[in-house]
Structures are given as C-alpha cells and as structure tokens.
C-alpha cells in the first residue's frame, strides 16, 4: 500500500510533506472502502444467507430460496429493504448517540481487517503489534452496543447494553490470556510472524504444539464467541428475554449495520482462530515464497476459516443460551483459572523441550491425535444419530 502511495506521489510530482501525507491518506481511504465494499459487505451478506440455509437444513426446512439461484441474492434483497425503510428514532432518545452507535459497532468490526493476513503477501498492514491492535479495536463494538442500549431510552435496550458491557469486559481476559500463549510460542505480536511460526501440516499448528494448547484453543474459541455475542452467549440481544436487546429501537439502515457487524464478526472470529491456532494461510513448502501463489494461500486460509464459521453457525442452532450469572461463572470460575494454568504449563513445556525437535514432534503428533479424536467423536455421533432415527440419506443441498 505504501508503495502504491509512493509511486503516486512520484508520478504526480508532489514534493511537500503535507501533500504526500494527504495522498497516502487518500490511498488508505480508497483502499479501505474498496476492501469494505468488495470484501467485507459481500462476505457478511453471503454468510447471513449461508447461515439461514444451513439452519434451515438442520431444522428440516428449506430456508430462503427464492431471490436468485437458491436464494443466493437474499442478502441483497434484505439490504435494499433495510435501506428503503424509515429510519425511526424514539422521541426521548439521545439523538447523537443513538445515531452514532451503529457506526461504532461497524467500525470496531471493520477495522480488524487491517491486520489480518490472508496470504503471505496479502495483508493490508503487517503491524508489528497486530494482535494487540485487533484486541483494542474490537472494544469499539462494546462502546457501540453500550451507547445503543443507553441512548434508546428503553429499559430492555439498557439491560442489553449493560449485559454486553459486563460480558465483553469479562471475556477479554481469557481471550487475551489465550492469545498470550500463542505470542509466547511464536515470539512476536505481528500476525504475519505468528502464521510463519506454524506450518502447513496439522501437527505444525499452534493448536497441536502441546495438549494445553488445545485447552487454550477451546477457551479462545468460546470466549471469542462470547465477545462476538453469538449463541450460546447472545445475552445482549436475547430475543426471548429482552425483546431484541440493545437494537430493539433500531430500524432501517442502522439496524442493517448492526446486522452486518454481527456477521462480519463471524469472519473476524474465524480469521483470528485460523491465524492464531490453525496455521493461517500456511501452504506446503513448494507453494510459498512467491507473489503468484497468493490465490492458493488465500484459498487455504478461506477454507479453514469457513470450517470455523460453520462450527460457529452449527453451535448457534444447537445450544440454548446461558444465564447472566452462569456467563460470569463460566468466565471467572473456569476460563480464567484454566488459562492461567495453561500459560504456566506452556511456558514449562517450552523450557523443557527447548531445542529438542524430536520430543516436540512426538508431543505435537500426540496432541494432534487428541483434537482429531474430538472431531471424529462428533462425526461418529452424527452417524449414530442418523441410524437411531431411521433417516434416509439425502445429500441434495440444492432443494
């Protein structure tokens, strides 16, 4: 990106420093809007369609299938409808805050895109504090939701907002602690370096470094669900308890922004999990080191991320939501002590195994086997349930 800005400055013959800064700012802005419009919005939209189709299939129904082939354009129809709607605001609402809140939420999610490495070369800005930047930027979401809850002048919204604040403040601790182990293992805060510290094969990923990393993976995954307020932690907008939580009073495009942010968050959670634990864009040795291999690495990254997103969606349609006190108990009684314990264990393991690559490899394969066991367990139970209910196999997903 800097190179593009530099070349533009040279070709336009700008010499003053303020001018150069302006141009680079413009380039930044242009790039950001392109990424948002061309990647983020479609991704969030398509995910919303996919989620509804998957949910439908899981619940023995069809799901949206009318607009476009297989209902693929449903998200555009929803977006257009939301834009056409009147942007209502309650009489006694705090107008500036009320209008501002969705942008905070959207910004908090959108800004994380900057530091996420899609491939070896495809990263907007490889910040040396990348992971730190992402943690801090996602806090904007909390601010936005709290503002939305407060400014709506609605008691249900307020409860939703306050719930959200307490939830996200609590769950940032286990998230940060679990990220800390990854930082320990890779020795860097930069996202690119974290990916480079891993390899293509599953036993080279951070998750299978040692068994405690599996615990850290679970803790990171679940607490990032809580931070993104996905079921079973969707308390801020628990639709059966708080009507619709913080976004009760929103309508039209502002509501759509909340919605987009929710599904954009899915992407962020998936990308973070992939990058930190599942090897990121890492390809086999032969497919690295060249600009031209970007699509391959990008596809690898997107595949891993899609699996994570699918699991998140599946969890949403499987589990009931937890209660407020249970939410706190899960965080403070289980995640925080476990993650502290795991950090200790990981550091001890690092000290013990330092430089001994055979022990490391054996341990890696052992812990790969452990998490593979969990994956196979779920698959086995799926097959078992299939047999128990006497169902007929039908893999035609395009009904």
């Amino acid at each position, binding site marked *: 990106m800097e190179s593009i800005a530099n070349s533009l400055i040279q070709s336009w013959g700008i010499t003053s420093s303020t001018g150069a800064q302006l141009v680079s700012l413009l380039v930044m802005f242009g790039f950001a809007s392109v990424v948002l419009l061309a990647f983020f919005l479609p991704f969030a939209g398509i995910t919303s369609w996919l989620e509804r189709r998957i949910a439908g299939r899981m619940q023995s129904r069809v799901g949206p299938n009318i607009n476009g082939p297989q209902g693929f354009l449903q998200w555009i129809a929803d977006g257009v409808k939301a834009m056409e709607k009147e942007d209502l605001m309650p009489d006694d609402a705090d107008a500036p805050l009320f209008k501002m809140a969705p942008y905070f939420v959207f910004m908090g999610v959108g800004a994380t895109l900057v530091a996420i490495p899609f491939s070896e070369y495809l990263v907007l800005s490889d910040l040396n504090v990348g992971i730190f930047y992402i943690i801090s930027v996602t806090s904007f979401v909390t601010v936005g939701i709290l503002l939305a809850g407060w400014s709506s002048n609605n008691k249900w919204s307020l409860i939703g907002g306050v719930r959200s604040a307490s939830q996200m403040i609590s769950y940032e601790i286990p998230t940060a602690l679990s990220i800390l182990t990854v930082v320990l293992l890779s020795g860097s805060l930069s996202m690119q370096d974290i990916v480079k510290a891993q390899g293509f094969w599953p036993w080279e990923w951070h998750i299978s470094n040692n068994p405690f990393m599996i615990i850290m993976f679970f803790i990171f995954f679940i607490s990032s669900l809580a931070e993104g307020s996905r079921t079973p932690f969707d308390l801020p907008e628990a639709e059966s308890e708080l009507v619709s939580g913080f976004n009760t009073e929103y309508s039209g495009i502002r509501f759509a922004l909340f919605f987009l942010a929710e599904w954009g968050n899915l992407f962020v959670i998936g990308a973070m999990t992939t990058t930190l634990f599942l090897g990121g864009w890492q390809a086999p040795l032969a497919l690295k080191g060249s600009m031209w291999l970007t699509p391959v690495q990008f596809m690898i990254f997107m595949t891993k991320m899609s699996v994570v997103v699918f699991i998140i969606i599946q969890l949403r349609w499987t589990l009931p939501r937890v209660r407020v006190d249970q939410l706190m108990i899960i965080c403070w009684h*289980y995640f925080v002590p476990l993650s502290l314990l795991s950090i200790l264990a990981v550091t001890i393991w690092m000290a013990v195994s330092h430089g001994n690559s055979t022990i490391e490899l054996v341990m890696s394969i052992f812990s790969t086997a452990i998490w593979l066991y969990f994956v196979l367990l779920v698959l086995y139970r799926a097959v078992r349930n299939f047999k128990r209910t006497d169902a007929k196999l039908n893999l035609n997903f395009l009904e």
Partner: protein
Amino acid sequence: MGFKSYIKNIKETLDSTFEGMGITLSNLAKRPVTFDYHSYGDPKRMQKSLEKAGLKNYIETISEGYRGILEVDIDTCTGCGLCERACPIDVITIEKGKNEDKRIVVERFAIDNARCMFCGLCSIPCPTNSIMHTKEFEASNYYIENLLFEWADSDGYIAYNAKKDGERERAELGSKIKDKLIEATIIPDEFYPKKVKAPKPEKVKLKAPPTVFGNRKTRKPVEEEVVEEPVKKVVEEAIKEEKKENIKKEVNKPSDISTDNTDGDKKKEKEVAEEKATENKDNNPKE
C-alpha cells in the same frame, strides 16, 4: 464446588455439546420435510416443488373429509333449514317461500364465509349432503363483502323433493366452489359500507331458574337493600355535576350515551325488582 464436580461439569458440558452437534450435523443429510407453497406467486415453482415431494397438486396433501370452505349444491337442497338452525354463529341465511304449486322455493341461500369457523355442525344434519365442506381453504381477498356467497339464484329455486323430483345425485364435491372463489376476487362497486346503528337489544323477560331439591329447612328471604354500585354512583355523580356545570354555563349539549345507558339500567332494575317481589311472594308461603 469440589474438584470432582468441577471436572465433571466440564466433561458433561463438552459431552452434551458434542452430542448436540452430532445431531444437528446428521440433520444436514436429511431431506427437509417442508416444500414450497406458492399458489399465488409462482405456479411453476409450486409445481416443481410439488414434483420433488411426489405430489400432483397441493390438494393431495389435504386429507379426505377436510373441513374447508362450504359448498352448497342447490339442486339437492330440500330447504329444510337444519343447517341454519345448527350453526352456532348464524352464518347461514335461508329464506323460503311457496310457489303456485305449493312447493317450497328457496329464495335465498347465503353463507357468510368471512365469519364461518369451519366447525362442520351444518353439514352433519343435512339429509341430502347438499351442504358440504370442500378441500378449498384459500378465500382471502381485499373485499370482505365478496366473501358472502349466494348459492340460490335471485329468482329462487324450487326445493328438491325426492318423491316429486325423483332421485338426484349430489354434484361432484368441489365442482361449484371454484367459480365462486374466482367471482370473489372481482372488485365490487362500493366497498366501504356506511356505518350502521347498533341493533336494539331484544327485551327478554328474565325468569329465575328452578331450585334443585326442595329440602330446604329454613328459607330466609334474601333481604333487598337498594344500594347502588359505587362505580355507577361515581359515574352518575360525575354526570350530574357535568349537567350542573352545563346549566351554569348555559350551554346546550346533546346528552351523553352513558346517561342513556344508566337510564335504561334504572328502568330495567325496576322491572327486575318487581318481578322478584312477585316471585318471592309465590315461593315463600310454601315453606
């Protein structure tokens, strides 16, 4: 919380979550039980989804004897009026007369489908199965007047009499309703009916129900104190005050509806009181 239960909680949570994930995952490989229903929007699409489900049309999904919109085969109607009497909500209106040959003529046979609740009570007593429920269920349209289906022609129809007319068979079920449903979508000339005044409630003389068993030992006559309800009192006082104010201001206002009501109530109360007095006299000496 002991260490054992701590570990147990984690284990059970993970276990039950994996079980649930297995179930939702296995449902991905099952066929959805629903199919598209587009009878109004996209008939082709509807046909496709029906074919997938192995059906010819959506009527097939409805079982025999479904209680849908009522159909009357006026050719076999005897004009007996059993259906009209059976209906709990007076949806059916039948008007009868007699022609020169002293035969019953059904002048009017109207069914108000807007109010019909499809209970099926009318079709049971029908001697000739003239009135029956069809499988049709979609009658919604923009004009509620159109849901009044007239089954007899305006000239009237000579009621069916098996002895005089010979045996007749009922027309095929569902053959006549379709025209009516298509008719119902036509825009009427005037579709905002003017307001109608409330019907005057019929005056019914109330009689006390009979007592069950006469083994009463001492029957104390229930004392009659004329104490008016506080709610009514408040309302009446408010009205009185209003009237006073009105007189003071010397403004002529039409009397409120509520005053009419209370007046009516008073009259009624008097009547009831008189009745009670007479009945009590009748009852008491026996004991």
